[in-house]
């Protein structure tokens, strides 16, 4: 199995225009990942699948991750004019890192299964934000195994996969509006609530009884 760096080099060689970035993983698992730029993701994915040397023909896992925007406080050194002289002053600056949604794919090779596998090849893609620009290219045309999993990501995280053959909710019902796996998701007070004719019926019953009694 090749390391993430070697795969990155292979992609750069075959598809020089594609933006691919190595994302290091500090945990002991050392499963580093490659971040694809969405515009070239399908081309890179089909290269990874069809390249005879890599032959990553098996997309095992596809999932989403929600990274909400977070406030970062940083100490910045600023030169200010204090009493007519330039002095370096430390200032705390609050900055909001914009949030995004991420799709993560874990690839293996069944063709080269006999090779020692160090770990999965991990692909990641980011949306521009979490609200209105949540499109990513679907990798289902390349790996059919992503079909239900991308539907699940769409359902639970709200990433819209362009080019997916059948993008519908899969676990929640069609009328459901939110995306439950997002970090800021708030459960409804009452899942069972649905508008019924109850009040109306009770009112009519009361009227009816009143009429009968009167």
């Amino acid at each position: 199995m090749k390391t993430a760096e070697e795969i990155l080099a292979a992609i750069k060689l075959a598809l020089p225009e594609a933006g691919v970035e190595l994302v290091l993983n500090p945990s002991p698992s050392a499963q580093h990942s490659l971040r694809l730029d969405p515009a070239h993701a399908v081309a890179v994915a089909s290269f990874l699948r069809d390249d005879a040397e890599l032959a990553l023909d098996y997309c095992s896992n596809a999932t989403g991750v929600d990274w909400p925007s977070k406030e970062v406080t940083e100490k910045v050194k600023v030169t200010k004019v204090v009493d007519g002289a330039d002095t370096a002053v430390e200032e705390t600056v609050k900055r909001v890192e914009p949030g995004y949604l991420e799709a993560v794919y874990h690839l293996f090779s069944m063709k080269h299964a006999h090779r020692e596998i160090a770990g999965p090849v991990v692909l990641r893609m980011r949306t521009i934000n979490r609200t209105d620009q949540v499109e990513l290219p679907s990798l289902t045309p390349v790996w059919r195994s992503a079909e239900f999993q991308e539907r699940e990501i769409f359902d639970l995280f709200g990433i819209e996969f362009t080019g997916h053959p059948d993008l519908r909710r899969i676990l929640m019902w069609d009328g459901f509006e939110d995306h439950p796996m997002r970090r800021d998701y708030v459960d409804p007070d009452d899942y069972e609530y649905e508008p019924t004719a109850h009040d109306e019926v009770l009112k009519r019953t009361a009227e009816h009884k009143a009429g009968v009694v009167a």
Partner: protein
Amino acid sequence: MATAFKSYRPPVMEPSEEGDELLEVAMGPHHPSTHGVFRMDVALDGERVVKLKPVFGYLHRNHEKIAETASYLAAMPYTDRLDYFCSLTNNWAYALAVEKLAGLEVPERAQYIRVITAELTRIQNHASAIGFLLQEMGASGTPLMYAFREREKILDLFEELTGSRMMCNYMRFGGCRVELPKGWLDKVKTVVDGLPQFIDETEALLTGNEILMARSQGVGVLKPDLAVNAGITGPMLRAAGVNYDIRKVDHYGIYDRFKFRVPLGDHGDIYDRYMIRVLEARESVEILKQALKDVPAGPIMDPKSKIRGFRPKVGEAYGRIEAPKGELGFYLISDGTGNPYRYRVRPPSLINLTVLEDMCLGQNVADVVLIFGSVDIVLGEVDR
């Protein structure tokens, strides 16, 4: 870029005669053959299936979200409820992912216990899967009850070891929860010694059975290239002839120490899936025999592992095992706190259903039940 690469889609089928009307049937959600609550929206041209759309979610409880709001340890008993037939392999997959995330080692003795419990789980799962398949074929009761008789013996062992027959909650990150009870290994040996006879009996009853052959050979065929592209794993993939067993590929645990073969099918039909399960159960017996011979003494937990207040370093890990139904993987992201930032289950049952439509198209509606049964799913894992 133009789609120069090959894409695998199910064919769009038309009624056999122009102007024919299709009959739309909702199979399920409460249908005895759906193994739970699951629906297939089927369009029929006479008896022939021309469209099939699976509908999920009836058992959805957002397992992943529950686990993300709880500690790493608290997610362990929840994993039992994924594929409730195989709680011990679920435990193992989760424990393996956490061990990768935190860099924990598992002591020898615990590795052996894990292999023994996992292979027992595999045998009882395959036995029941065959039993259910035959039940759906109309062999009312007998094969299933034989399978359950054997399964009971294995569940008794689990109960003695873990305190529970199905919700075992036995493994921990870096080992196992409790030491083996006295004499447990001898009881396992007795059960394992009886298993070949049970498998022989099952084969004598079923393998050459005319009805089984007539209904399953050439039905629900899955081609190997589609199986690979659609991420099919487990007995279904190997029945299609693809040699991919994670025990052999990843060498997780201590599987490289045991001699066993990976049975492969030729046709990828229901009969092959049945046969692969029988043969895999036989190989599991072989693994069990080898594992039981040399269970070492020693600790069952990595002394470094800290069960309570467990906070792995920032990072992520994907760990997977060969569960009885296919590749069961867990993907975890840690942000350094006590509960996982992201907890993802890669469910073999759900992903193996990706090709359900491809296998059913053109078949009779009665065969849909069999094809679905031969996939071997548990809805607790499909919907999570």
